[in-house]
Every structure is written in C-alpha cells, then in structure tokens.
C-alpha cells in the first residue's frame, strides 16, 4: 500500500540531490587537491576552508595569501577534512533516501529503518567530531578553531530517538502480524 504523498516525493528528490551533490563536491575537492599538488602556484590567492563547503577567492587587496608556500600536508589535511565531510553527508543522504522510500512504499516500520536511523545518527556524530577542529588555511596562516557544533549533536540525538521509536514500531508491527 504505497503512498503518493507529494511532500514525500519532494523530500526524496531533495535528499537525492543533496546526497549526489555532496559526492560531486567531494570529488571536486579531491580533484582540486590533486591539481594543487602539481600546480600550487595557481592557488596563490585562494582561501581554503574545509567546513565552508567552498573554495573562496579572496580579494587581491586583502592581506593574505600565498597558499603555495604552506606545507603540503597541512593543505591536504584541509582537503581530506572537506572530502570526509562531503562523503559522510552523501552516505547519510543515501540512508535518508532509503527511509523516505520505505515510507513511500507504505512499509514504515520495516526492520531496516531503525538501523538506518542509527547510521544517520552516527554520521552526525562523526560530522560533529570532524568539524570540531575547524581548519582554515589562508596563505601561510593556519587557523585551527575548536568548537563543538551543537546542531550536529542534537541532530544525532534526534536520529537515535527516531531509531528507537521505529524499533518499537517494528516490534508492535510484528506483534500485530502474529495476532490471530
């Protein structure tokens, strides 16, 4: 008994777009990193931040920037952090898509949904850990800011609570199936 709820369809495609968009951006990040390794002089006037989801061009008049002189491993750290963040968002979107799909098909309390919610929760926790160290590179300046993102922790908690609710729903569903 599937449902043709248009809001669910919109949510499904939004999550689809976010997921594959994340994978695309992660791949782009990796390509930029590889290109940077071979031609660092192209990146002289760029500011890199793994958590800003972008590579920003800084106005030439600003005090920065000579990224090519920064240590390669530090720059790779920023790239890898960004790549990890985008990949995790992409994977979380895959699980989100599966959950929405199961709701669309009318199998709301299936056995997999609690597991997928738990994985989404774990993803949020990893995101919180990854963004705890907010690394920013700007020329020779290497900024490391420590801040705990409360939003990610709350989202993880919410996902874990939903996992518990769906687990209980699954148990009740099984019980009702075995009621004669």
């Amino acid at each position, binding site marked *: 008994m599937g449902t043709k709820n248009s809001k669910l369809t919109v949510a499904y495609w939004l999550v689809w777009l976010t997921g594959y968009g994340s994978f695309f951006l992660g791949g782009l990040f990796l390509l930029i990193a590889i290109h940077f390794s071979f031609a660092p002089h192209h990146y002289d006037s760029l500011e890199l931040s793994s958590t800003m989801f972008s590579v920003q061009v800084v106005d030439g008049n600003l005090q920065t920037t000579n990224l090519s002189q920064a240590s390669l491993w530090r720059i790779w750290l920023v790239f890898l952090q960004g790549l990890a963040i985008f990949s995790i968002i992409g994977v979380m979107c895959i699980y989100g898509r599966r959950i929405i799909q199961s709701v669309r098909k009318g199998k709301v309390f299936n056995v997999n949904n609690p597991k997928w919610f738990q994985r989404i929760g774990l993803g949020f926790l990893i995101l919180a850990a990854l963004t705890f160290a907010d690394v920013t590179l700007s020329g020779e300046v290497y900024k490391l800011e420590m801040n705990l993102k409360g939003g990610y922790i709350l989202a993880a908690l919410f996902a874990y609570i939903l996992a518990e609710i769906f687990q209980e729903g699954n148990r009740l569903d*099984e019980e009702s199936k075995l*009621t*004669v």
Partner: protein
Amino acid sequence: MPIIVNLDVVLAQRKMSLSDFAEKVGITLANASILKTGKAKAVRFSTLEKICEVLECQPGDILVFEKTDEV
C-alpha cells in the same frame, strides 16, 4: 512462552484438517498455522470464541499454562 497452544491435539481428536478449521473459524490458513505452531503472540477473544464454537471445547482445552523458570 509459558502458554502452550494445544490446537494440534484438539484438531487430531476431532479429526479435522487445518484448512477446514481455518475456513470454519474464518481465519486464513497462515494464521491458523501460526496458532497451531505456537508462534502466535496474541489471540483475540472473538477468534477464541469462534474456535471454541467450531471445536466444541473450552478455552482451557486449547490454551494451557505451564510454569517455567523464566521470570
């Protein structure tokens, strides 16, 4: 579970097949099988009433409580 379903014994005594039983009670064969094999988690009073009517027995003839060590 300490509740034992003796449906197979009662059906054998009445010489009634499971499909006949399911049809007369008005439940699916799958549900009758769940009941017979003891996999059922619950039985509705309405179903129990029909079972007793069809098999001409008391609920106690079908359901037996056996104490186990589990709490």
